[in-house]
């Protein structure tokens, strides 16, 4: 049984895709960012030098190039490195790629993958800490992957490179790169987009999480069980678009209490949309007001003390769940 990091699992998906399909190409190869985990992608680069373009800082053209190549059958993944750089490429990712299949009635498709490292990362400050997944979710035609585990990263990247028909914003969290998971059965990780997972079963309250908040919610659940005798069910959404409404429905109907854990900003963040769906569809099942653990509407500050104050942590999930379960 293999213990792998998120980065290793992502590199494995890229490797399998490069081997399986000649049309797979990498535009940029800094998936591990400035962490030691980048070595896995450097090794991949050394194995497949002809399948990787090393690009200048031209995010707009890099993203657009992937879209154009995808429309004629290539299966490119663009590595945009830090998610805050994706704004340079928004015109292509948000305003070109998602409309192509819709406007051609599916005759032309643009299954390009846009990978980025998004998250509050430790002194990244206002310009290197964006979590733009809610902006992508606000873009019909674009799928949004928000893997929470190494297995998710593997399964979803493999899917988007080898099987998907849709363009995808693939949002990895820099603090997940070194997170480990024991994976016995890689095939079991090849779950389709729009299918979430129950990471921990529980009876009292549903925590709906994505990306790095899956890890933090599981940590919170253990503390809540030990210190408060609260039994949490933790859901890992894996993708925002498509959204696993059925998974949420089953869990919320069972527990009647909901806490959404999301690292986006509060206003119009991913958490806001999830809470709206819960309120719309499951109002009658709710036994307490649903809550969200999110970042306040303040640019992410540089100072570690200030950054800690805006980060949705396991402690803050514990506090929100305890409130939701208070009689």
């Amino acid at each position, binding site marked *: 049984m293999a213990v792998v990091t998120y980065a290793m699992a992502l590199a494995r998906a890229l490797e399998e895709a490069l081997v399986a399909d000649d049309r797979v190409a990498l535009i940029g190869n800094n998936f591990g960012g400035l962490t030691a985990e980048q070595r896995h992608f450097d090794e991949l680069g050394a194995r497949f030098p002809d399948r990787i373009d*090393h690009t200048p800082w031209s995010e707009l053209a890099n993203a657009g190039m992937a879209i154009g190549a995808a429309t004629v059958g290539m299966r490119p993944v663009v590595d945009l490195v830090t998610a805050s750089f994706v704004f340079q490429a928004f015109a292509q990712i948000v305003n070109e790629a998602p409309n192509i299949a819709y406007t051609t009635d599916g005759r032309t498709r643009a299954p390009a993958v846009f990978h980025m490292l998004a998250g509050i990362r430790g002194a990244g*400050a206002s310009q290197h800490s964006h979590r733009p997944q809610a902006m992508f979710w606000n873009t019909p035609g674009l799928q949004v992957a928000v893997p929470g585990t190494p297995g998710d990263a593997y399964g979803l990247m493999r899917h988007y490179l080898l099987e998907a028909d849709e363009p995808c914003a693939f949002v990895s969290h820099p603090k997940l790169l070194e997170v480990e998971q024991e994976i016995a059965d890689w095939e079991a990780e090849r779950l389709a987009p729009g299918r979430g997972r129950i990471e921990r079963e529980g009876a009292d309250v549903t925590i709906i999480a994505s990306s790095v908040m899956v890890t933090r919610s599981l940590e919170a659940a253990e503390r809540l069980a030990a210190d408060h005798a609260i039994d949490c069910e933790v859901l890992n959404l894996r993708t925002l678009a498509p959204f696993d409404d059925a998974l949420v429905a089953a869990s919320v109907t069972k527990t009647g209490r909901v806490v959404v854990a999301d690292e986006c900003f509060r206003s119009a963040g991913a958490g806001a949309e999830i809470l709206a769906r819960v309120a719309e569809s499951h109002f009658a099942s709710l036994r307490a007001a649903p809550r969200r653990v999110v970042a*306040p509407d303040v640019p992410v500050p540089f100072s*570690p003390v200030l950054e800690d104050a805006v980060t949705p942590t396991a402690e803050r999930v514990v506090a929100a769940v305890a409130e939701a379960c208070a009689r």
Partner: protein
Amino acid sequence: MTPAEADQRARLVHWHAEMMRLRAFEEAVAEAHAAGELPGLLHLSMGGEAVAIGIFDCLEDHDRVFSSHRPHSHFLAGGVDPRLVMAELAGRQSGLCHGRAGTMHLMSDRVVMATGIVGGTLPVALGYAMTRSQPAVVACFFGDGAVQTGAFHESMNLAALWKAPVLFVCENNGWAEFSSRDQHTTVGNVVRYGELYGIPAQEVDGSDPEAVRRAAAELLEPVRAGAGPALLECHIARLRSHYEGDWREQTSEGDPLLAVERRLSELGVHDEEINEVRAALLADARALCRSVLAGDDVPDPDDDAALVFASPLST
């Protein structure tokens, strides 16, 4: 020694001390960062000291400057109090931006702003320049990596079209993060864009403060007179790698301090004098860093909401 040589010697002695002041600041920062005492991703400006000194020597108080993601030398050469910059790098309340900005997002009055985004300040500098009255100008520093962004070309085109009083200062260190210049463009030197956009342009050895000053002064004359923008390409060495903690593609060749010190020796300045200057400035910078780190002025998160909008209603 002729009077001209004596002048040059006095000027070089002064510039050397100024360049060393910038270098010493970053040496102290690098040491504290390596020891885990300063947070964040650091891009040092080591290698660009002669450019900063040469450019600011031609600027007047009413001129304004925009910086890049290697901003420390620009802010220090622009007269910003080193204690404010050091405290900002430490994320302290007494920092230039009260610990909110950190290394890549410094902002002040005369040196208006840095950016963590390649090419991010070029259009902003253009807009700022359009509001200036003669003879005030705006100088905007950027790296050669920024030349491959759309922001560079859109800004150059508009500045030329509308005759904006901007001096575009490219610090060409030959690298964009981890790729060398020949890996990311077929255009040889950045100076060539001057001809394309029809604006005066020069390229200089960016390790020579005198050469930078002379070229910048020549280029600034028509800019101040309202003739439109100019472009100065300064070839410099990236003495550190892309960021602190990484050691790929760093070099000690082309160190502007060593170049100036060689020239000082030729002009008869003794090595002991040079070493004394170096040692004293390094001691000052280290003492400043210690003093800032010893402070307990941690910013208060409760103040944050009030900073987001001029009139906060609710968050």
